[in-house]
């Protein structure tokens, strides 16, 4: 086999190799991109990274909706009549070459002023002059060099996003104040009654006071708000002792410097807030470029082509599509609404809906469902239902999608903070009562000292750092979680529900079976040689099936799009394709994807394609033996016998499940007090994913669409699911050890506090020491756990 790699995209050039400028290309598309680059002196693109490109796709007519002014207006980020700014999401951005070429767009067209790439978000922000270049032209330009933007219905609604940077401001202020206060408080740590120190300590102290004001009032404000909210809903959350600690620290320190009693605890106060915010910051950083909130809107196009009563084509916004309208769906376009096929040859790919990759053939009069993608030629359809009422999109009107899962979940920190708060308060009161009898001048001192030293900085840091780090480790192993809380939720689950198609099976591999009369060598060679010239995915699959055969010359090759192909070898005529094409008859009731063949119009048999199961499915199920396992499938019971043999005995198998049935099944398990993980892939699992405690979407390519979920798992890591769950259990274990460790620190601190000898310097040492040691401990422990993951 020829193994030359395409200079542009890196694909194998196995059928046709085009040599241009001493470089080989796999197709004309790739060659054209190279030509565009070399004409504009942009060949540096290929120096930065090897084979960085993507094959430009056929997009004729796809972006006609960008002629529509109202749609453009909604998409633009900035528009002052002359200069426009647009932010486009481009899934293909993946390397430094991409950044380079997209930031040099002005070399391709002089009306593009600037373009700036945001790599983590995979977006490019283009400033241009609409008087000289339209948005459509820009989109076509960047598509022609292989960077097709992804414009969906979601962009249409969101409009201009506001970035929340308040945490960064708060962190900056806390860090700034912390540093300055440390400098100012340092001279007094050593308590030497020296002349100069006595002289100036007041100015030092008041400056510390000034620096800590913004920390308490602004940087720490979230803790007060959260504590207040907790109290109002009668929950003793972790922020209550923190807020108490901050306010006591501030008030006591202020009183101390007013009456010249001591230096106060401003150093500990600012340090505490700084560390806490650092923990928050650490936990907040997630995967910018992945979206976990997507619904059908991020998948549906903005506009479709409508055929008016006069027979004209016009581009119309999707929400304006009404029942009775006639729509034109081109090759590779998505069917946005339920409808009836009027004419044209429909090959519908429902993989986003069901996970089933093989296209389904439809003929005029058949019903088409929203969410399918047309794969061959142009079709016309009549609309039966509007977008929101279509079979698939209706699922999103279910209440599940309005519920916020994380708000109802009680984290391990919440659980412990309740007991902790009660314990701290009672120690404070008992110690105060005790000192009231012995020496009442010290009573108030002890009371405040207990609240200061018991401020649960270390406890509050344990969970964010452990889970934050675990999140990052999971990310490196291609398991991307929405937020850190998901790890805790994952550790608590005891039931797993799998989707079958696309989850347990993969559409990257097929098992091909042949049914019919036996084929001899020459016939196989003829088949292989004819298939070689076809680019249809089924032909490619079948071609590789005949890998060991020889190729021979064929003549009169003809491909009939959507039907099949025919070719001659000497006197033999071979026909390969759909049953209607090969033997002029449809096979009723057969849902399998198959390719039929005939020689000299004599029917031979058919090749049946079936999705292969992922490697290690059986091993994964064995590993998860202690869980309540089930498999739900939208398919018929065809595979039941096979699955029963393959999977552990107690696995529940459910077939013919509609999207809503899957949701209800998960809800049923939850009623039986199970905590459920749902693992699915298509839009039809979206309801079940939202209903489950942890919904994991399995994805062959994480940049492409996946339904709303709590985590996205790269399909190559499927057999690691067991290890991921185990690791999240260990993470929770680590948090518990941290709590023990920080309790030890608290006991030491409390000894000083209760006995009335808490010096600012002790607090200033103990507080950062406990926090830092907790952070070090969790980092080492989580990395050890992470090492065990493959």
């Amino acid at each position: 086999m020829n193994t030359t790699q395409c200079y542009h995209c890196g694909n194998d050039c196995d059928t046709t190799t085009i040599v241009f400028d001493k470089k080989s290309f796999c197709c004309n598309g790739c060659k054209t991109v190279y030509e565009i680059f070399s004409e504009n002196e942009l060949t540096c693109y290929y120096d930065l990274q090897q084979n960085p490109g993507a094959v430009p796709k056929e997009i004729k007519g796809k972006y006609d909706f960008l002629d529509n002014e109202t749609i453009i207006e909604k998409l633009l980020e900035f528009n002052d009549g002359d200069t426009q700014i647009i932010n486009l999401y481009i899934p293909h951005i993946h390397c430094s070459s991409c950044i380079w070429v997209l930031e040099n767009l002005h070399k391709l067209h002089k009306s593009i002023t600037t373009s700036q790439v945001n790599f983590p978000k995979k977006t490019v922000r283009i400033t241009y002059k609409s008087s000289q270049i339209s948005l459509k032209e820009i989109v076509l330009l960047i598509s022609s060099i292989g960077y097709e933007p992804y414009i969906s219905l979601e962009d249409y609604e969101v409009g201009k996003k506001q970035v929340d940077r308040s945490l960064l401001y708060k962190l900056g202020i806390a860090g700034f104040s912390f540093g300055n206060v440390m400098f100012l408080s340092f001279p007094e740590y050593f308590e030497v009654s020296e002349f100069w120190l006595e002289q100036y300590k007041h100015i030092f102290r008041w400056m510390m006071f000034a620096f800590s004001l913004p920390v308490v009032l602004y940087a720490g404000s979230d803790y007060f708000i959260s504590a207040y909210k907790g109290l109002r809903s009668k929950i003793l959350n972790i922020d209550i002792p923190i807020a108490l600690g901050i306010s006591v620290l501030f008030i006591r320190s202020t009183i101390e410097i007013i009456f010249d009693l001591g230096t106060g605890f401003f150093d500990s106060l600012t340090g505490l807030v700084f560390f806490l915010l650092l923990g928050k910051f650490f936990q907040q950083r997630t995967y910018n470029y992945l979206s976990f909130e997507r619904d059908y809107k991020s998948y549906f196009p903005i506009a479709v082509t409508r055929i008016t009563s006069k027979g004209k084509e016009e581009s119309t916004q999707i929400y304006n599509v009404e029942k009775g309208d006639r729509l034109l769906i081109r090759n590779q376009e998505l069917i946005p609404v339920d409808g009836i096929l009027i004419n044209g040859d429909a090959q519908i790919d429902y993989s986003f809906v069901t996970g089933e990759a093989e296209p389904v053939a439809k003929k005029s009069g058949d019903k088409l469902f929203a969410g399918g993608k047309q794969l061959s030629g142009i079709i016309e359809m009549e609309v039966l239902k509007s977008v929101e009422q279509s079979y698939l999109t209706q699922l999103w009107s279910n209440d599940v999608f309005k519920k916020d899962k994380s708000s109802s979940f009680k984290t391990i920190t919440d659980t412990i903070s309740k007991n902790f708060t009660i314990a701290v308060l009672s120690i404070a009161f008992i110690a105060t009562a005790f000192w009231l009898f012995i020496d009442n001048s010290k009573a108030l001192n002890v009371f405040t000292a207990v609240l200061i030293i018991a401020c649960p900085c270390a406890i509050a840091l344990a969970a964010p750092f452990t889970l934050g780090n675990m999140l990052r480790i999971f990310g490196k192993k291609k398991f991307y979680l929405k937020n850190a809380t998901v790890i805790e939720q994952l550790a608590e689950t005891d039931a797993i529900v799998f989707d079958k198609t696309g989850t347990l099976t993969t559409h990257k591999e097929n098992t091909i079976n042949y049914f019919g009369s036996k084929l001899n060598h020459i016939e196989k060679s003829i088949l292989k040689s004819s298939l070689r010239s076809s680019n249809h995915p089924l032909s490619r699959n079948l071609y590789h099936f005949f890998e060991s055969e020889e190729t021979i010359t064929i003549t009169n090759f003809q491909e009939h799009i959507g039907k099949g192909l025919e070719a001659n070898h000497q006197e033999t005529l071979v026909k390969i394709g759909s049953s209607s094409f090969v033997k002029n008859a449809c096979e009723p009731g057969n849902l399998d994807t198959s390719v039929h063949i005939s020689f000299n119009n004599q029917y031979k048999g058919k090749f049946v394609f079936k999705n292969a199961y992922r490697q290690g499915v059986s091993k994964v199920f064995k590993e998860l033996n202690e869980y309540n396992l089930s498999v739900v499938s939208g398919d018929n019971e065809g595979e039941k016998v096979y699955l029963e043999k393959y999977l552990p005995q107690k696995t529940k198998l459910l077939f013919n499940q509609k999207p809503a049935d899957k949701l209800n099944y998960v809800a049923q398990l939850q009623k039986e007090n199970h905590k459920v993980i749902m693992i699915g892939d298509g839009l039809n699992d979206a309801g079940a994913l939202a209903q489950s405690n942890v919904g994991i979407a399995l994805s062959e390519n994480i940049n492409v669409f996946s339904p709303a979920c709590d985590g996205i798992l790269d399909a190559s890591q499927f057999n690691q699911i067991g290890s991921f769950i185990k690791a999240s259990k260990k993470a929770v274990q680590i948090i518990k050890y941290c709590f023990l460790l920080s309790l030890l620190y608290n006991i030491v601190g409390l000894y000083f506090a209760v006995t009335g000898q808490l010096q600012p310097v002790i607090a200033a040492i103990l507080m950062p020491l406990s926090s830092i040691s907790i952070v070090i401990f969790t980092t080492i422990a989580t990395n050890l756990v992470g090492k065990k993951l493959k």
Partner: protein
Amino acid sequence: MSVIYLLLSVSVLVAIVFFIAFIYSVKKGQYDDSYTPSVRMLFDDELVKEKTNK
């Protein structure tokens, strides 16, 4: 006036200048994308090389 007041005010002033610079940079969105600039800064060199070759 003692020199320590002068020193204190100067040091705080310098610190505040840097602090304002930080706030300004956050506001301008410099921290929104912490990866791309690191790649971008390497490009210019190669571009210059490209031109001098000709």
